[in-house]
């Protein structure tokens, strides 16, 4: 639809990527010896480690749910992850992202298998470069699988945005701050469901649809990278559950 328009207008992105190109992604699972499951992700210059603990006993116990497990997520940035240094105390932003992360991941986990238990997902941002919440979701879903927690499918996530009138995939820090719109999306390729959707900025309805399609393309690419990371650790041959 707007392809021709894009080609004409598109100057290179600040890091030289094409409009529909993801940043380089590296995922490694099982990096934390003490965690039940873990993953390390580098998505552009984002560096994030996620640890999963559980299913384990819920504390305080009165918060446990009699019919299913409780998924708890924590998004936390290291003081040295951004410029200038930030306080290690969690901010309002951290708390909100922890929540949307939980909602992004919950649909993928068979929580009903573990009544009363807690599953804790802790994301530690070691270096932030725009799109940390999406990178966290990518690493967290790999870490949940690494912990052996049964899941309906992997959750893949990336952001789409608009800068100088162009729709672009996977915003870097600069594009995030200078852009006209930012739309982080998490998607379960297997269930074909969007589990995280936020936006700020201004988009027309048409642009929104274009963004969403681009985001889902991006998530599908990330899905393959997540699967490769798991195959690398567990040495799985082709899964019979391929779409």
């Amino acid at each position, binding site marked *: 639809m707007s392809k021709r328009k894009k080609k004409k207008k598109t100057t290179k992105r600040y890091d030289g990527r094409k409009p529909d190109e993801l940043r380089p992604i590296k995922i490694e699972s099982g990096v934390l010896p*003490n965690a039940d499951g873990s993953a390390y992700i580098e998505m552009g210059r984002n560096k994030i480690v996620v640890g999963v603990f559980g299913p384990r006993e819920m504390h305080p116990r009165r918060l446990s749910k009699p019919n299913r497990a409780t998924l708890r997520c924590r998004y936390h940035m290291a003081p*040295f992850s951004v410029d200038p*240094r930030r306080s290690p105390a969690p901010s309002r932003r951290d708390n909100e992202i922890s929540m949307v992360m939980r909602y992004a991941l919950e649909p993928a986990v068979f929580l009903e298998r573990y009544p009363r238990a807690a599953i804790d997902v802790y994301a530690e941002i070691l270096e932030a470069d725009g799109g940390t919440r999406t990178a966290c979701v990518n690493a967290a879903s790999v870490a949940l699988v690494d912990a052996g927690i049964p899941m309906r499918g992997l959750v893949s996530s990336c952001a789409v945005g608009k800068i100088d009138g162009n729709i672009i995939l996977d915003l870097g820090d600069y594009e995030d701050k200078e852009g006209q719109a930012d739309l982080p999306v998490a998607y379960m390729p297997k269930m074909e469901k969007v589990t995280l959707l936020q936006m700020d900025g201004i988009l027309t309805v048409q642009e929104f649809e274009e963004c969403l399609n681009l985001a889902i393309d991006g998530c599908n690419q990330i899905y393959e990278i997540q699967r490769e990371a798991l195959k690398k650790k567990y040495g799985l041959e082709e899964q019979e559950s391929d779409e």
Partner: protein
Amino acid sequence: MMSSNVGIVSRLKKRKINEVVATGKRMDGRGLEDHREIVVKTGVLEKAEGSAEVRFGDTWVLAGVKVGLGHPFEDTPDKGVLMCNAEYTPVAHPTFEPGPPREDSIELARVVDRGLRSAKVLELDKLNLITGKHVYMVFVDLYVLNYGGNLIDCSALAAIAALKNTKMRIYKVKGDQVELTKRTKALKITKEPVAVTMVKIGDSILVDPTADEEEVRDARLTITLDEDGNICTIQKTGTEGFTTDELKKAVELTTRKAAEYRKHL
């Protein structure tokens, strides 16, 4: 102070550790005075002005150094500020929970901080910009990513490795204002203190304790040495005491181990 993971080592395991240590060996096959494999990587982060990742076996600590502008303390208006902070992240151990800093993470930060401060690692008077108003603030943040015992030695090594790796942005004084320039320079490090932690189990003294050994230890002693062999910091914890002979032996042991740790810097 109690170790963080009290209750995980069973009484049987505790007895076994004590028995094995009494024969001069350890559960993981090391001798009492052997340390685990040490891996030091520097410059692992781009946004921090300095960084280092240090592993002692399974123990994994990431140190990030941020240099910024701030107000000096009232009692030292012409000196820069060095601050050391430690965080036990909840990914590091199943018993670590999110929340305000725990007693032992504060101790960790303070012991490492005292080592840096006492050894006069930085020339703080050279980090002054406008007396009483603007000085450089140097933050060393220690991020514990996996707990496998001996956090102090690992963190102290990470802190000094990260400081040595630090390239700070230069501020320029213009009248009574300061402005950020594009230029950078390496942070000058005058001393390189290294911490050596020993635990006493029964009558034996062990270096580089694992998480299990730290939990069953009767006492713990950390000694920090600079490269000239001067003692910069001491911290003793635990319910048992040391005899003076044991302390002399510990100092001698520290001198040897510090030299070995220092090779990784």
